């Protein structure tokens, strides 16, 4: 073997291996021109029960019916949905009302065009051994949070309403490890877990969690998950966004008629999801995915939003905005607005 061959051989082997592997697993390039109208939706998190209506609409072909080829993407980080929609990288993103308001406060050009989950899912969760039945029981306890400032403010408001001295409650930032720090008894309670997800999970594992919804403990209600669009693209993209929300309305109704349409599609697209957990979670979330009585699908109550802005101002979470006016529009909802 020549010296050159000695060098070349491993290089060749490695390259061949890589090429072989690459050829087998070639992914479809999404840069290819599409004849159907591509519509990119970025989720707030990994796909889960909150998104069952979206998967139902897709499985039923409701998006296709309105000429949209919806591609569902997961965010690379929690801040990505708003950033990407503001940068025009995606057509629509799912985020949280508090995040939308904070973005508007920094003059990020986005607008919420409809609610996906119209009430807070954030909750205070504890195990029976901690004996926290009401917010007043938090006195002397340690509460784990994800380190998100507005969620820490929830805790302060909850303590304030329950007349608990905040000095008597220790807040500990546990990051993403809400459930595990609770189970490991590193904290007595957590604030930040969703009652329809982590709560259901603990219930299914037989841990009998005690759950206090934050809206029941003095925090003003808000839309947990909302559809966020680029404010500058609203005129140009209004038709497509309206079409999307129309299909979502139909998808959510289909989910109500038969939850399996959404769940099966969700599980088929994401084989690593826990079917038992997702089924139960869809069941308890469904009422909040459906429109409130007498309101169109996705309706966002401007007075609730304003009240939430006031609360955020009181807690110094926003500085420049005084109302939610620039943060939301109901004009694109099914049967609403000038362009219907």
């Amino acid at each position, binding site marked *: 073997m020549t010296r050159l061959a*000695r060098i070349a051989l491993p290089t060749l082997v490695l*390259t061949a291996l*890589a090429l072989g592997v690459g050829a087998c697993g070639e992914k479809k390039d999404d840069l290819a021109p599409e004849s159907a109208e591509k519509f990119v939706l970025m989720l707030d998190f*990994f796909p889960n029960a909150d998104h069952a209506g979206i998967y139902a609409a897709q499985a039923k072909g409701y998006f296709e019916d309105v000429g949209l080829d919806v591609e569902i993407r997961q*965010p690379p*980080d929690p801040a*990505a949905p708003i950033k990407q929609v503001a940068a025009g990288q995606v057509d629509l993103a799912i985020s949280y009302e508090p995040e939308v308001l904070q973005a508007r406060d920094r003059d990020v050009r986005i607008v919420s065009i409809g609610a996906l989950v119209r009430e807070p899912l954030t909750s205070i969760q504890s195990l029976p051994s901690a004996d926290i039945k009401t917010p007043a029981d938090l006195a002397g306890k340690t509460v784990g949070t994800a380190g998100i400032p507005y969620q820490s403010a929830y805790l302060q408001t909850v303590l304030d309403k329950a007349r608990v001295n905040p000095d008597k409650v220790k807040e500990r930032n546990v990051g993403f490890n809400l459930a595990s720090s609770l*189970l490991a008894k590193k904290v007595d309670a957590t604030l930040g877990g969703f009652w329809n997800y982590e709560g259901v999970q603990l219930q299914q594992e037989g841990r009998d969690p005690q759950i206090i919804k934050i809206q029941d403990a003095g925090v003003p209600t808000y839309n947990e998950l909302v559809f966020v669009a680029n404010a500058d693209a609203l005129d140009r993209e209004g038709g497509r966004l309206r079409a999307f929300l129309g299909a979502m309305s139909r998808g959510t109704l289909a989910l109500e008629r038969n939850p399996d349409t959404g769940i099966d599609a969700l599980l088929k697209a994401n084989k690593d999801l826990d079917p038992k957990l997702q089924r139960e979670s869809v069941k308890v979330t469904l009422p909040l995915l459906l429109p409130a009585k007498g309101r169109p699908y996705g309706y966002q109550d401007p007075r609730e939003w304003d009240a939430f802005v006031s609360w955020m101002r009181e807690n110094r979470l926003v500085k420049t905005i005084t109302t939610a006016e620039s943060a939301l529009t109901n004009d694109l909802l099914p049967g609403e607005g000038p362009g219907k």
Partner: protein
Amino acid sequence: MRPYRANIKRRPAPRGDFSMTILKRYLPAAALLALALVAWWWIASLEAVDDLLVASPGEVLGAFGDDHELLLEQSWVTLQEVLLGLAIAVVAGVGAAVAMHLVSPLRDAAYPLLVASQAIPIFVLAPLFVLAFGFGIGPKLAMVALICFFPVTVAMLSGLDSVDRELLRLTRSLGASRLRVLRLVELPASLPQLFSGLRIAATVSVIGAVFGEVAGADAGLGRLIFLGNNQLQTPRVYAGVVILTVMAVGLFALVALLERLAVPWKRQGGTI
């Protein structure tokens, strides 16, 4: 010059002792592994440890049984990312090292940046990669390649620097061109160092793939572990981790095998 050692060969072990040799070689590793397993089992069985948080080895075995289809599917996705990313890192790393070696202003300019780049937290880069490479396999490859690029480049550079000066002078005085010196002397001489860099790259490459997948992926072991953690499916999470470690060890062994083929003189105990 170094002493001539090509004739000093290792005494071959008598055939009958072959299984004994194997046993001797791997016994310590096996014993340590067994000890770790026992400790794991013991910790998992403790009353104070919540079984949702720590899965026992038995539960993990169960997950391998129940989820084998899913695990296999996701492993394949991750393996592709690792191998392709590693290949990119090797090509780019060797190329960069040779370029820096040949053009010293380039080296002066790029080397400090190369070192500094290692301090950037991966999760800052993940969203940027998504922005640059979209949502397919691109950002994962970039992540693996980035993590593996550094050890490959640094090892290759120091390999190129380690060439016997006398040998360099000799070949130059015999009229060899710069590229010829590179091809005949410097590249072969740097191979042992390159391979030690490759060993490191092979083991850390899986970490790159996991980071890439956690930052938004439709499939892969990284996503499986992240989601499993989120769903309190601890046995499945551990099964994913076991596969990742096996992958890293396998890649390490593959590099060692390639090294035996590419650098036979090292094994024979001789010099170039």
